[in-house]
């Protein structure tokens, strides 16, 4: 019979760590010596996806740069819950300036490092979807266009959570927010044209663009590592569920992120110099209802009668992603 | 203090003229101040630039309202803008033209001034001849040096060379010298005319 190569079926490649893996193959988060760049004691809500994503990303970046890292942070949940006087949770040199200028601040830091000959020190900028796709977009676009040596990370939870869940240009259609209430003839957020931030980043032709979710840690870490292997402007868009804003159970944060990927709602891929070079295939394809139903912000779609038409349109968007990025294998899903 | 006002159109190097004039004076150890009638005028629009010369520090920041000298780079402005406004009775006037004051329709004004202080010079022609472009400013400075005697041709040449370099500089210097000689010659003839 054909000999099957030994794989780690028990711990799979999906878990954070794996006692059967060699040290060098282990994830940063599995490491006992991990940096905890975002330390305990922060004031994020229970089950905060952003807190999770930020530690994953910055820990990976710190490892990739041998801890020669400086971070700039936009105003928002991440900034507020991590640095309320007199305590900070950050273990990296970190600066918060304003809501809309993070990319520029990072550019300034990178310029300072260049002029001081510290090419070993790398710079990350991070912000939420509001600080990235809305108020910070101008500065970000400028940073991309100049190809400044900065990795910009957007933690996308699809609304202005810090101010109480108001709509951002990253808020999905039909989602309820404080400024798109679930009332009237078309409850929830409008079906706009959307603002495909990763695609906009790619349109700048920058060296590296990637999307990731907090559900696939190894993938996220690999992308941060990859990003750090480039010089110039890089962008990673991380999908981070928000229990408070989305109205799902705190323990479901990772599950929701997984569902977003498995339904095609959030395509996970990598692009270099404006071209998609790899996609994370859907493993077990699911209809969008599976993703929408656990979230109160979509509860109005499942009333009596359910808004089948709206759900169909959301499914269409997911299917478009699946087509556009080839998220399914020939046989439909990947093991 | 001696104040010069230069009238011209955007693109004719009016502001540069004032600046070069200030540089020339500076090189002669005097204090000088040059500034434009600030604006967002584009090519062809009327432009005014000012220059003050003095032996002590110049503190005054107002525009030149009562000029001791006028340099008019473009005669078509004569009837469009109040170019002679505030000109002192014994002021100097230098107009870039190959025509006469009468022909320009400002004979009366000219006659009201001291003959040896008003003059015309075909600066644009000199510019075309020596620089190859219709920029009369340098040539006019040469003419101004001749008519006013307030600045030496050498200083003007030096200022031109500070602003420009290479062929452009030398071309402009040549144009300035030519205009200088032209004006000197005109003035001589005018004196003879008076003498006769």
């Amino acid at each position, binding site marked *: 019979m054909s000999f099957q190569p030994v794989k780690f079926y028990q711990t799979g490649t999906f878990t954070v760590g794996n006692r059967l893996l060699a040290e060098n193959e282990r994830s940063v988060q599995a490491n006992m010596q991990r940096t905890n760049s975002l*330390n305990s004691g922060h004031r994020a809500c229970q089950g905060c996806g952003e807190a999770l994503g930020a530690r994953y990303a910055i820990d990976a970046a710190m490892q990739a740069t041998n801890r020669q890292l400086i971070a700039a942070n936009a105003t928002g949940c991440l900034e507020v819950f991590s640095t309320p006087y007199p305590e900070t949770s950050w273990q990296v040199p970190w600066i918060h300036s304003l809501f809309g200028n993070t990319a520029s601040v990072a550019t300034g830091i990178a310029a300072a490092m260049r002029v001081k000959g510290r090419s070993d020190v790398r710079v990350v900028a991070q912000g939420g979807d509001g600080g990235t796709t809305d108020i910070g977009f101008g500065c970000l676009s400028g940073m991309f266009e100049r190809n400044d040596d900065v990795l910009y990370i957007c933690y996308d939870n699809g609304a202005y959570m810090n101010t109480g869940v108001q709509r951002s240009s990253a808020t999905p259609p039909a989602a309820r927010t404080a400024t798109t209430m679930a009332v009237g003839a078309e409850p929830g957020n409008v079906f706009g044209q959307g603002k495909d931030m990763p695609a906009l980043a790619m349109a700048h032709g920058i060296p590296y663009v990637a999307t990731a979710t907090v559900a696939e840690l190894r993938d996220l870490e690999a992308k941060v590592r990859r990003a750090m292997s480039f010089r110039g402007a890089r962008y990673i868009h991380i999908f981070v569920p928000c229990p408070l804003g989305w109205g799902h159970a705190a323990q479901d944060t990772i599950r929701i992120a997984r569902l977003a990927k498995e339904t095609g709602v959030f395509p996970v891929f990598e692009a270099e110099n404006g071209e998609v070079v790899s996609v994370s295939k859907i493993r077990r394809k699911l209809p969008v209802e599976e993703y929408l139903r656990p979230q109160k912000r979509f509860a109005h779609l499942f009333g009596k009668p359910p808004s089948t038409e709206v759900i169909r349109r959301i499914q269409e968007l997911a299917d478009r992603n699946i087509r556009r990025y080839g998220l399914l294998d020939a046989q439909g899903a990947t093991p | 203090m001696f104040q010069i006002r230069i009238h011209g159109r955007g693109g004719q190097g009016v502001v540069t003229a004032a600046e070069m004039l200030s540089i020339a004076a500076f090189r002669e150890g005097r204090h000088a101040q040059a500034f434009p009638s600030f604006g967002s005028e584009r090519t062809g629009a009327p432009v005014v630039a000012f220059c003050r010369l003095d032996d002590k520090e110049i503190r005054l920041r107002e525009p030149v309202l009562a000029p001791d000298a006028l340099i008019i780079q473009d005669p078509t402005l004569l009837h469009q803008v109040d170019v002679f406004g505030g000109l002192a009775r014994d002021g100097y006037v230098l107009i870039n033209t190959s025509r006469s004051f009468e022909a320009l329709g400002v004979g009366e004004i000219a006659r009201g001034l001291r003959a040896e202080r008003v003059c015309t010079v075909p600066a644009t022609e000199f510019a075309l001849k020596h620089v190859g472009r219709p920029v009369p400013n340098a040539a006019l400075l040469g003419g101004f040096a001749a008519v006013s005697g307030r600045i030496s041709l050498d200083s003007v040449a030096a200022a031109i060379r500070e602003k420009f370099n290479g062929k452009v500089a030398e071309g402009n210097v040549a144009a300035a010298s030519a205009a200088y000689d032209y004006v000197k010659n005109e003035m001589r003839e005018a004196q003879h005319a008076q003498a006769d």
Partner: protein
Amino acid sequence: MRKPFAITLDPGSSLANHTGTWRTTRPEYVDRLPPCNGACPAGENIQGWLFHAESGDYEAAWRLLTRDNPMPAVMGRVCYHPCESQCNRARLDTAVGINSVERFLGDEAIRHGWRFEAPQARSGKRVLVVGAGPSGLSAAYHLARLGHAVSIHEAGPVAGGMMRFGIPKYRLPREVLEAEVRRILGLGVGLHLNSKVQNILETMRGGSYDAAFLAVGAHIAKRAYIPAGSAAKVLDALSVLRSMEGAEKPLLGRRVVVYGGGNTAIDVARTAKRLGAEEAVIVYRRTREKMPAHDFEVEEALQEGVLIKWLSTIRQAGDASITVEKMVLDADGFPQPTGELETLAADSVVLALGQDVDLSLLDGVPGLAKKDGVVQVGPGMMTGHPGIFAGGDMVPAERTVTVAIGHGKKAARHIDAWLRGETYVPPPKHEPATFERLNTWYYSDAPKSVSPVLDLVRRQSTFDEVVQGLDEGNAQYEARRCLSCGNCFECDNCYGVCPDNAVVKLGPGKRFRFNYDYCKGCGICVAECPCGAIKMVPEEI
């Protein structure tokens, strides 16, 4: 650095903020009983030894396994592995091939000549074991490891009991059996062959034993009345199988009819085939669904050309033929005669209708209770007579080798306690690790690796072992398919997914600890634990 006041802060200072106070429920690590362990009649810690096998430490795996079962090589061949039918992985793709890994470990042990550690201390007590079958050998092994002096009295000429006389070579090669018996004897267990115990009390007195464990098995074939002609050749399955161990093989003829529906019937039919019978027909009065024989054995038999006549009973046996009557199942699933008869050609009829126990050695033992031809025992395997314990086929239980081995272990522990004047209290069982508690996303799909099977021709003509073993690659692959249901396998998920870094990793083999100073009780660790080894419990307020 003279830092500006308030706007500039020192790194990591938020540790001063104990967010654990927000918590209303707290996560706690638990261990749960994996279904395989729960289902193993021998009480093996299957998940435990698979854990070692995964990392390639086969000796550690074998040593853990043999803490409960001294005969993995045998078990890996003859056990009907109820563990696999309970395996949660079956709900995902297919059950983990526990049995084949066990066999691999057993064979590795034989190959490397691994031996059991001798007991630390001698108890000075003597224990008599009657019968060298699986149950007796198991009891002897455990008692010996507990430091007691054990001797086995076996009626037959060789050790093994049903493992030798009831199971054909092609399922259990004898050298494997002998190797594992030898290893047990290696612990200093005395074995007296051809010494049938006639009277247990005398024997005990004679050998001044402090206790006895009886495991004589069930060797008396059940007979059913079948009108048979003088020339008719009617044999019983047990003697047929037993004679296979002897010099001359039984003469069954070209067409053999086997009567019965148990595993023994299958064994005989397959044996007949190998002895050269053109036809081996099993006559069974009910349907395949109702057949007690294990499905995979029926399957193998059919592959080898064994025929089975369902819903039939033998009315009469002639010299070259038999008459069978068709049956139908009534509403309660019991077969009822139809009167419809049919004749089958048959050179011999082999009856495989089960066995009875020879309890003569117990005659006159006071306090002993017998019922339905077997000995009644208490929860500690002790008979009504103090000091005399019993197990295996002679007590009421399913009659399988694995159950017998389990009896041996159980009895040994109770005997040990009894000898010290105590009662053995088994440790409390963890609550079961059900499939619902798993987060199966984290296990990548990996169907069972099928053990190589001997090709048909050789199976039908020889007694070579039908099912071959796994090579190391497959064995490890198989071991790694284990989901580790209900018990932490250090996948680091909880450590990685905690948004508050409130999980402390204690290092290889040491698992994890919660730092309740910072745990906000979000429960992500519980939701994302693959094996359900964390539970949320409400905080007391």
